[in-house]
């Protein structure tokens, strides 16, 4: 949909091309300002990772410098970082798939069926993310040890599911609510089981929502710190912990910290690029369904 593209004043003297250009220029100006706000710190982090340590924090900054990949080479030579990195990629990806498998159908049920005490159920789901992790970390540690999940990948995957499940259920419920029920009715009359109607008709229509929550869940799990800190030891270690190893007791290795931070952004960027086209698979139901 294009929501913002026509005349503001009825008696505008501007020709469309000019006005269009103006509107579009204004839009891009605003977006570029925010792009700068967003990208400058990122640029700074990346440039820190490419500078020798002294240059990283000197003022006025060296705008022009000879990039060095020294930090990245160091990073790659650290087997523990590489291990944790791929470990995280695996655990986080697995958890995103699982949390979608668990959460999306549940959201669908909450959207389409009469659930007794629905509001309470929803708030209950939400309550799982209400307490700061520091308030629940000890009980989780106790359970994890009791169930032998401590420092296991399964345990971390489960943990990631728990931090994302409420998000997935809530957001997806909202998206399902926006999908006309007629579509489903048509599918069921066409002989689809409820499940088939869900899978073939509703899910494709909910794509923007699904991929959005996938991105967000991925990121939430990817940057999670406290649970991975307390619940892992050395098998299921995560990349966040590895980033922080450069924050030492009497020395912060800025270059390495920046390089590691940059490295952790990369999978997210790749993931976002991969699902980019689904984010706005804007379906115009209105064209098809008379409302």
């Amino acid at each position, binding site marked *: 949909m294009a929501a913002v593209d026509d005349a503001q004043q009825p008696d505008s003297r501007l020709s469309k091309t000019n006005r269009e250009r103006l509107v579009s220029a204004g839009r891009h100006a605003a977006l570029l300002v925010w792009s700068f706000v967003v990208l400058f710190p990122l640029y700074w982090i990346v440039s820190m990772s490419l500078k020798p340590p002294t240059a990283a924090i000197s003022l006025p900054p060296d705008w022009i410098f000879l990039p060095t990949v020294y930090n990245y080479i160091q990073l790659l030579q650290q087997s*523990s970082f590489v291990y944790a990195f791929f470990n995280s990629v695996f655990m986080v990806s697995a958890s995103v798939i699982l949390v979608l498998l668990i959460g999306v159908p549940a959201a669908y049920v909450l959207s389409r069926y009469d659930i007794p005490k629905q509001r309470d159920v929803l708030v209950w789901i939400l309550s799982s993310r209400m307490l700061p992790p520091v308030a629940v970390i000890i009980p989780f540690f106790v359970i994890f040890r009791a169930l032998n999940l401590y420092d296991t990948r399964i345990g971390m995957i489960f943990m990631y599911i728990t931090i994302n499940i409420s998000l997935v259920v809530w957001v997806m419920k909202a998206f399902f609510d926006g999908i006309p029920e007629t579509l489903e009715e048509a599918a069921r009359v066409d002989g689809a089981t409820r499940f088939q109607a869900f899978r073939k008709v509703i899910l494709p229509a909910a794509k923007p929502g699904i991929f959005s929550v996938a991105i967000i869940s991925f990121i939430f799990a990817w940057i999670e710190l406290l649970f991975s800190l307390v619940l892992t030891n050395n098998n299921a270690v995560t990349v966040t912990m590895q980033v922080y190893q450069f924050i030492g007791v009497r020395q912060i290795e800025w270059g390495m910290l920046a390089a590691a931070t940059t490295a952790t952004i990369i999978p997210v960027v790749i993931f976002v690029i991969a699902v980019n086209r689904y984010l706005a698979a804007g379906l115009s139901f209105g064209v098809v369904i008379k409302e």
Partner: protein
Amino acid sequence: TRGGDSSSGDGSGDGTSGDSGGDSGSDSGGESSDGGSDELAIPLSEYQSADIDWRQFEGSEINIGAVQHAWVDAIKPAVPVFEELTGIDVVWNVLPEQEFRTKRLTDVSTGAGEWDVFFLDQVVNQFRESGWLQALDPYFEDDSMYDEEWYDLDDLFEATRWQAHGGGYSDTWTGIPITVEVQTQFYRTDLYDEYDLEVAETLEEFQSNAQTIHENESDVVGTVGRGQQGYGMNIYILNTFIRQYGAELWDSYPDNSGLDSEGAISAAEWYVNLLQDYGPEGASSQVWSDVLSTMQSGNAGHIVSDANLFWPGLTDPESSDVADRIAVAKAPAPADGQFSPNAFAWQIATSQNADNSEEAFLFMLWASSEPTNTWMHVENGAGFSVRQSTWENEEYRSRVGDNFADVTLESLQAAAPDPFDSQYPEWGQTYSEELQTAIGGDQTAEEAMTRAASAAEDIVGE
């Protein structure tokens, strides 16, 4: 399992870049499997001369919880020696300080006992009083585990031994000290030359040096110092001056904190004024890393008093713009006070619930023994020895420079650690918050100290 060996294990020679080299933060004993084939860092004979049954726990494994401290980087390459010597595998769990504290508390307080050996700091008495710590005395008394002659306890600085006894609150060993840092002053030689300054011994001299630089240099502030709250932050610095002003914290525990004594208030006033007048903008939120970075980037004339461990970072051309223009000196003291900088020692301890406490003790012993310690300092860039002998070691002195070694040694000999009672984290926190507010200019130093005192007494008295 994965190959856990990091190729650049021994760093590149000095303290700072050592960090980047060998942290296999959570590497599961990778070294042990490869260790045999490589040349060992320290000959085993150094240890086998001791009357200790090193191999009595052969085949077991210990888990070490450590903060991301230079000690870890310095000792890691030597760990294969320990593994070879004892047949015990070592698993590391290295974390940043804040995260380390969280995890340590979770592990120890729930009785999980994941860590057989862990770093211990100001919270030693908190841990001790809650009954989680295991006193090491029985091990010291066990002949198969300890050889007094070989180990040479007296070589450890008094201050560190004191701290390893619960900071004076315990009669038994709470842990074994592994590192010690003492506060020293850092200054810029180029600026001193330019303005013809003398190294300050008194606070007054220091203040005037700072003033000179502050007022004459546009981009350089007179001094930097920690302002941020936290029990290891601003008060860690201030306590030095309080003691030097002749005040004593908790001269009568738990009734009088001493925080509102005249000396304490004078010290606070001095420190607050110093930072406000000649410190950086926003000093009240600076942590040690800001202090270090500001100095490294050449934007400060002094560090009034902070850990001597900054030295490698300040003098490494890789990370410091002013590496060749920095010098170290003893922290300033009031003209009429006594020189008594703050010293802080990390100890490693074991908990009641740890599965492998005996193995842990062997590790502690090994790690703090003279051969290991010397090797770390001479060969592997360390600079925090708890053993006096190291500071007198010529090889070591020539590496770190006589000046640094002397300053440190003298400071350490005169140093006194803070008294960390079990409620230190709590009252220290409040105290540091008050101090930070004062540095920020929202209350006077006197108000801050008075309020800190009453809060501390409330907390402790409860």
